């Protein structure tokens, strides 16, 4: 059994869930205050730094270098301040999910051959801030590394999490006897939904072709594809609620007040939202799905790389109309 401690436990971070913008700004300034000048020059960017904004990927940081401050280079107080900022900007569930992804990478490191260990691990996650943390001005928090890219744009009271990438490898691991599945809900809820559809609905939802990977993954900012599958207007109320439950796994990563605003927007556009599935509907087998609405793209794609595709999952969460908060900032 892999013996690991959760990253948050290692850092001794208590979960903070004061979600008001003032608390997030205070946490950001608290983190910045722990940094020396050299670290500040690495962690802080102009809000309009377009190159930094898009410097994220699903790939290990040794392959696609990230800018910002590396967790492994921070002292315990600085790490704690960084985690406090992250936990304040995210919901409780969101923070736990993110930490489970980070710790999954540590698990991957432990199980990797010696020559690959340097590519993985919780020390290789980066934090950066674009713009000046403010309750009025637009600024952005980035946190990510291998299999994780969080882009949280704060526009006054709004917290926009798109585009963000969550992924997991291994998608299931054990810590102190407890099984951790970072994207377990994303998997289980979607299988429940596809199996709750009647035959006619399923015929529309299931695509008659294989989907080998994310279509709108890293590097595809600003693009939207033609929607396919089953329109949510053809779902009954219970099925629509199930679909919203799947969506919430991404929309609910950001702090609760911001997530509530986002979910209300998604719910209002439910009739124009599509659900598409590719692959088997038997629980435990690898299947791709996509949820697409006027302001939403979610993709979930098991990856054959590494053997069992159910143990290596990539997902993307976008709002093509408001990625990086561009629409909110323009208001």
């Amino acid at each position, binding site marked *: 059994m892999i013996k690991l401690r959760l990253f948050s436990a290692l850092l001794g971070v208590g979960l903070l869930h004061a979600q008001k913008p003032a608390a997030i700004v205070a946490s950001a300034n608290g983190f910045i205050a722990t940094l020396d000048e050299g670290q500040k020059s690495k962690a802080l960017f102009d809000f309009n730094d377009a190159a930094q904004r898009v410097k994220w990927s699903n790939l290990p940081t040794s392959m696609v270098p990230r800018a910002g401050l590396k967790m492994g280079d921070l002292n315990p107080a600085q790490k704690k301040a960084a985690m406090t900022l992250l936990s304040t900007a995210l919901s409780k569930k969101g923070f736990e999910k993110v930490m489970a992804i980070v710790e999954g990478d540590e698990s991957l490191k432990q199980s990797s051959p010696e020559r690959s260990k340097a590519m993985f691990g919780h020390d290789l996650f980066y934090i950066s801030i674009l713009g000046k943390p403010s309750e009025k001005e637009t600024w952005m928090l980035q946190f990510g590394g291998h299999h994780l890219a969080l882009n949280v744009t704060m526009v006054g009271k709004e917290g926009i999490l798109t585009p963000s990438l969550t992924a997991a490898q291994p998608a299931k691991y054990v810590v102190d006897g407890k099984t951790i599945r970072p994207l377990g809900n994303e998997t289980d809820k979607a299988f429940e939904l596809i199996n709750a559809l009647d035959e006619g609905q399923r015929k529309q939802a299931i695509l008659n072709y294989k989907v080998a*990977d994310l*279509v709108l993954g890293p*590097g595809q900012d600003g693009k*939207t594809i033609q*929607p396919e599958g089953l329109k949510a207007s053809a779902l009954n109320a219970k099925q629509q609620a199930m679909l919203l439950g799947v969506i919430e796994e991404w929309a609910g990563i950001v702090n609760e007040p911001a997530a509530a605003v986002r979910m209300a927007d998604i719910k209002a556009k439910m009739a124009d939202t599509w659900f598409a599935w590719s692959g088997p509907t038997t629980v435990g087998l690898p299947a791709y799905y996509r949820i697409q609405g006027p302001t939403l793209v979610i993709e979930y794609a098991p990856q054959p790389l590494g053997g069992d595709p159910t143990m290596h999952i990539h997902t993307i969460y976008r709002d093509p109309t408001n990625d990086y908060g561009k629409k909110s900032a323009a208001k």
Partner: protein
Amino acid sequence: MRLLVSALLAMLLAGMGYAHRLDEYLQATLLAPDKDGVEVQLQLTPGVAVLPLVLPLIDRNSDGRISPEEETSYARWVANDLELRLDGRVVSLEVIEKEFSSLDQMREGLGGIRLKLRGKGYGRELRFKNRHLPELSAYLVNCLASEGLSTGTPMRDEAQRSIGFVYSVAGAETLSRLLYPAAFGLAGLGALLSLRRVRSLFL
């Protein structure tokens, strides 16, 4: 070439003892029709296991680097392996952008090739097929959404090597409605004049 690639791949995979995404060349295509033509955006990502097969096809002189000439040559090869048809007519694709990762990046399993191609013309039905290295490849093909573009339900093969759909672009429809009858009218007039000329030769 196809037989050689198949044989090499079979040998390689037999040696590795497994077969999964590592052994695939992911070819992701996004199609963007507009009123003047169709833009074809291709992202090619060779998996680590197929890299020994793909790299010699790009680095033709095996000098360990991809020269601009080799980039151009490979991009043209890819373009020739793609088939774009508008209303049944084959539309030639011109490479307008290309971006190759370094060989080192490709060897790390990261590298990719981005190609942007364009075909001129407009139609009501678009069909696209990718015939590039089918023995090695997994495919994605989608149509980008854009303002003014309407598409019908796309039809694909199971492997996503091909796609077909009807489409219309706001503005282009009006233009084509005016141009097509005019073109048919001119063609008809031409045919009539030719016929009269032929008849005059015999009568």
